[in-house]
C-alpha cells in the first residue's frame, strides 16, 4: 500500500551557513567542546560523575546528587518475619500469580500455628529470571515479600541464584536495619 501524501512529513534540513560549509570553524568548535570535557574530567573534576564502584557506592551519596533512594529501590527480595520471628507469608500465591516473569514457586502447607491457615514450606525465587518489577511486593496482602536495596548479588552457578525460603529470610535479617518494614 502506498503511503498517503498527508502522512508524509517532509523535513528540509536547515541550509548550511557559509562558515559551516568550509568545515573548519565547526571542527575547531567541536574540538573545543571535547577539550572542555577533557579538562573538566581529568583527575575527577567537576564534570566527571563516574564513580569507582566497589569503593564508592551510590548508597553512600545523597539522593539529590544521584544517590540511591533506599526506601523504594528494587533489589533482591526478602521474606519478612512477623513479631515472633515466623515467616509472615501465608502462601496465598498472589505474588506467584502476579509475577510477570514466572519466577516465584511456592508450595503451601497447613500452618502449624493457629493464627493462619497456610504457610509456605517451599518458597523458591529465581533471581536470574526476575526482572525486579516489584509486582510481587504490590500483590502481597500481608506485606510478606519485599524488595531490598541490595543489588550486588553474585553466584557461581544458576542453582545458587534460585533463592529458597531460608535464604530469603536471611536477606530479611540482613536488611531489616537498612530498610525497616
Amino acid at each position, binding site marked *: 500500500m502506498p503511503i498517503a501524501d498527508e502522512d508524509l512529513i517532509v523535513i528540509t534540513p536547515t541550509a548550511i551557513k*557559509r562558515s559551516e560549509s568550509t*568545515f*573548519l570553524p565547526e571542527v575547531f568548535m567541536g574540538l573545543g567542546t*571535547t577539550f572542555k570535557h577533557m579538562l573538566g*574530567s*581529568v583527575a575527577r573534576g567537576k564534570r566527571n560523575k563516574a564513580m569507582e564502584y566497589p569503593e564508592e557506592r551510590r548508597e553512600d551519596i545523597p539522593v539529590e546528587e544521584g544517590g540511591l533512594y533506599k526506601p523504594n529501590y528494587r533489589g533482591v527480595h526478602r521474606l519478612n518475619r512477623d513479631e515472633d520471628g515466623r515467616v509472615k507469608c501465608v502462601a496465598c500465591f498472589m505474588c506467584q500469580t502476579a509475577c510477570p516473569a514466572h519466577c516465584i514457586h511456592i508450595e503451601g502447607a497447613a500452618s502449624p500455628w493457629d493464627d493462619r491457615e497456610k504457610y509456605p514450606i517451599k518458597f523458591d525465587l529465581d533471581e536470574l529470571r526476575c526482572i525486579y518489577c516489584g509486582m510481587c511486593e504490590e500483590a502481597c496482602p500481608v506485606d510478606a515479600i519485599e524488595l531490598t536495596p541490595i543489588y550486588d548479588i553474585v553466584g557461581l552457578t544458576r542453582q545458587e541464584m534460585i533463592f529458597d525460603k531460608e535464604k530469603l529470610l536471611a536477606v530479611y535479617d540482613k536488611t531489616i536495619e537498612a530498610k525497616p518494614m
Partner: protein
Amino acid sequence: MLPQFIVSVITILVVIHVILLSCSYLIFLERKVAAWTQDRIGPNRTNFSFGLLPFKGKHFGLGQALADGIKLFFKEDYTPPQVDRVLFILAPIIVVIPALLSWAVIPWGGYYLFDQAFTVPAWLPLLGGVVVSPTIVNVTAAPINIGVVYILAIGSTAVYGVVVGGYASNNKYSFLGGLRATAQMLSYEIPMALCVLVVILTSHGALGADQFVHQQANGVWNIFYQPLLAIIFFACVLAECNRAPFDLAEAEQELVGGYHTEYSSMKWALFFLGEYIHMITGAGFFTLLFLGGWDLPIIQEPLIGGLGLVLLKFIVFASKILVLLFVMMWIRWTLPRFRFDQLMRLAWRALIPLALLILLASGFLVFKQHAKWFSPWLYTAVNIGAIVLAAVIGPFLPQGPPMNRKVGLAGSRFSPVV
C-alpha cells in the same frame, strides 16, 4: 662512513625499542583520552601484579597496557578455513613493515659530533679493531638526501597490507573494507603529495629530511607560514593511517571490523600496532615539515653537539610527536566518521583544489622571492586567502546530486506507481 654506520645502528635499536614499547602506552593514552572526553575515568586499576606478582597498589592503571599485550598473546590464533592462507598471514606483516621503514629517514636527534677518534673493540665481529676518526654524523637511520620522497613512497605502500588483508579474508565485509581503503588512500595521497610539494618549493627545493629542520630552526616553523596547508596535510595523515574520522576501512558499525574482521590474537594485534606506528610516522612527518623537527621554540640551540644535545633533540622531537598523537586521539573522539561520498568529496572537491591553489600561489611567490615586497608572511596571507575564497565561492560551485534521495522502486512502499 663507519661512524655513520655505528650511529645508524644505535639509532635504529633505540628508536625501535623506545617506540614499540611506547606503542602499548599509546593505547593506554588513547583509552584515557576517550574516557576523559566522555567524562569517565578510564583504566586506573591494573597494576603490575597481574594476580601473580607481589606488587600492591593501583599504579594509575599503568599495568593495563602490558595486560592488554599479554591478553593478545594468549588469545587463540584462529585462521578461518576459507581464507587464502599465505596472503592472510602476509597481510599484517605488510601493514607493519612499511610503517616501520618510514622511520628510517626521520632525523631524530640532529647531528652528533664524534670529537675523539677511537678504536672499535677487537672482539666485535666484522668491525673489530677499526679506527673511527672524528667526524659529524646524522642521528638517523638512513641519512639520504631525498628523505621526503622516501617517506611518501614507503607510506603509500601501507595500503597493500589493508587491501591484501581484506582480500585474503574471503569475507564480504573485509573485502568492502579493503576496497574502501584503496579508494581512500589513493585519493588522499594526492593532496598529501601536493602539500609536501609546496613545502619543498618554499624551502628552496630541499628534499632531505634534515634540511627542512635546518630551515625551520633558522627561521619560523612552516606551520605559521602555511597554516591551511598544515591542516590539509594533517587531514591527509589521518586518512593515510586510517584514523577516525577517516576510518572507513574498519568502520565497526557498518563493516564489523572491516579488513581485520577475520583476524585474531597477534595477527590482529599487528594490524593494531600498524595503525599506531602509522600514527607515529605521520606525526613525525608532520613535525618534520611543519613543526621544525627537533627545533626548540624561542631558544636557539646549537646545531652540532655531543650526546646531551642529541638526547635533548630526541626528546623535543618525541614530545612534538606525542602532542600530535594526542591531537589525533582528541580528533578521533570528537568528530564522527565521514560517509564514503563525503570522504571522496572532501578529498576531490576541497583538499585537492585548495592544495593546488596554494601550490600555484606559493610557486608564484617563490618565483618573486627576490623582489623587494617579498616576505615569507605572504605565504600565510595566501593560506588565509584560500580558505576565505573557498567559503565565498563554495556555494556557487555546481553541487553534486542531492544526498539521501529516496529512490522509488517500482512496487515498493515508496513507489509513485503504486
